[in-house]
């Protein structure tokens, strides 16, 4: 057969163009790491006490709750959904823990299993929201908003106005203990991260979540049980919220519904700052780790700099806008919602 030339100069140009786009996409993928490095360097230079071993420990400590929360939300957001239930549900799980260990309100003494019970509650509520979202075809935003309200109600009811103070020595042991200088709670949150990393990369569940977020129709056509995967994602989110509630309860040793307050939106911010898109299918848990770190160090740095408290949150807002603006694709036809 004759040797035929299939391609033309324009095809080579096309291939070049495609390579350029791929390269650009890669750079955008790594932008959050750049942003993290930038802020780390900046804060090291201008925030007194930022660059100290002790402060790293503090950052790790403060990272634990947001990290766990983002791990749950990452999967939900990868689907293109939202989960706002963290506020109420996290508070509820936290309250539950303090009521189950040795505390000032009742005679319970479940010890460590208390953590499990509380986390299971989070898991069950996650299942419930997932079920309503999937079977009722109600937007996850609304479902989880309502669930959050319901769970705050139950949380307040669980302690009837007077929060329980946990007296269990176990809790003290956990808060003050550390491995290799890393506090136990941070270790726990890192374990959740490892689990999430594992889930995303080493199970088919992770692959399916990615697929559904990328293109639900393809996933469905390949025989993936989309509904069941979605419910599993909400169960996982419920688990993470449960864990984060338990961690905050252990940290403050007090079961107040406020434990879940202001955890959800910062976590979603962290997920997005890390480079996971709200429309789903792009990003992942490593991105979220980076995002959580960015959000945490900014907060920590601004406090260390003694920034006026009224301005602190505004400054955070501005910084996040810049950080996100640096890492979005602004192509002409890119549709952003």
């Amino acid at each position, binding site marked *: 057969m004759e040797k035929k030339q299939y391609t033309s100069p324009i095809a080579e140009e096309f291939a070049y163009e495609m390579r350029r786009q791929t390269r650009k996409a890669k750079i955008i993928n790594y932008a959050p790491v750049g942003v993290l490095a930038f802020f780390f360097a900046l804060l090291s230079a201008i925030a007194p006490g930022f660059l100290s071993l002790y402060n790293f420990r503090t950052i790790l400590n403060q990272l634990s709750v947001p990290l766990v929360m983002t791990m749950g939300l990452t999967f939900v957001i990868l689907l293109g959904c939202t989960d706002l239930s963290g506020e109420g549900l996290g508070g509820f799980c936290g309250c539950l823990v303090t009521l189950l260990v040795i505390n000032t309100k009742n005679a319970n003494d479940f010890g460590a299993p208390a953590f499990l019970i509380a986390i299971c509650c989070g898991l069950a509520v996650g299942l419930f929201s997932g079920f309503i979202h999937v079977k009722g*075809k109600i937007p996850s935003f609304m479902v989880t908003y309502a669930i959050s309200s319901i769970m705050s109600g139950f949380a*307040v009811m669980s302690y009837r106005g007077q929060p329980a103070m946990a007296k269990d020595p176990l809790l003290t042991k956990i808060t003050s203990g550390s491995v290799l200088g890393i506090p136990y709670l941070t270790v726990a949150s890192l374990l959740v991260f490892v689990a999430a990393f594992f889930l995303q990369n080493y199970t088919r569940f992770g692959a399916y979540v990615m697929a559904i977020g990328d293109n639900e129709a393809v996933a469905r056509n390949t025989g993936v049980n989309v509904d069941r995967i979605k419910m599993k994602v909400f169960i996982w989110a419920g688990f993470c919220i449960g864990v984060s509630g338990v961690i905050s309860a252990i940290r403050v040793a007090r079961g107040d519904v406020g434990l879940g307050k202001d955890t959800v939106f910062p976590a979603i911010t962290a997920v997005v700052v890390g480079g996971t898109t709200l429309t789903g299918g792009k990003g992942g848990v490593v991105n979220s780790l980076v995002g959580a770190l960015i959000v945490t160090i900014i907060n920590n740095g601004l406090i260390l700099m003694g920034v006026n408290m009224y301005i602190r*949150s505004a400054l955070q807002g501005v910084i996040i806008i810049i950080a*996100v603006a640096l890492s979005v694709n602004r192509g002409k036809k890119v549709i952003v*919602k």
Partner: protein
Amino acid sequence: MNETSGSVLDILKSMLSSENLSKILSVASIVVLSLVFVAINPRFMVSRNITNILNDMSPLWVMACGVAFVLMLSSIDLSLGSIASCSAVMLTVLFNSIGPGAYIVVIIYGMLAGLINGMLHTYLKIPSFIATLCTQSIWQSVALLISGAKPLPMLPPVWPYIEWVKITFGVVPILFIISFLLMLLYTVIQKKTKVGRTMLALGENESAARLIGLNINQAKITAFFLSGIAASVGGIIFAVKLKSGIPTVGAQYNLMAIASAALGGVALSGGKGDILMTIIGAGLIIIIQNGMNVIAVDGYWQQIVFGALVLIAIYMNADHNRRDLVVK
């Protein structure tokens, strides 16, 4: 079957099409809920309580009208609450210096705040969720800075500027009329202008809207702009209703306004919605809150009942008929 009965049937069928059905159901949910409250405590329907409900609805309704535009784009505006807070504070502060002109300044502020949201979203292509979440914290800070982080009461010297709030027409309070007028204006914008049409079109199918030659950026910015105005009007209503500028007054109303719009049938996935129907959403939420107090639901149960009723209402309004529907 002859032809006429066929066409009558057709009309009936079209009336009961999924879309109309959900409208009917959402109106029905308000009626049923009200009946239940009345059955438990007949005083729910006394004229003064009706006035209360209409009054209480107004800020939420106004804000829901505004955010409905943004939701139609399938974007989201989380900065409503703090724009409202900031407006309330500005109004209170400015009354002292420039008198009634403050109303205008505050609405101009709302426009600006909306414009900023819109431009961040369209030109920097930042997802609206994040852009407005950030502007939310920025405006919150501004509100605290202006007020010196103190709730500012309106003192008797400025009361003349807000006396009009007490005017009622029968059972209908003036705040409700204002909200109604704003709703009317917004309905006109939605149904009768190019931008309004563009918003719905681009919420449904952005690539098509673009190729049709519609001005997408303008429509997006306008949506946020209108949302900003609505938020500042909401803030003004809070301020005159509470006779004060409280720098955190709107905090709870972000999600509540979005929920109202969604309850009123605005699809969070965009492209669908009717400004008029936001009255259903705002009405439902306020009736639930009001009714729970009238029939004295135990305080511990209030949030739980609230959440459950919202779930039920949104379920009834949701479109379950299309099998291929992707709900996020």
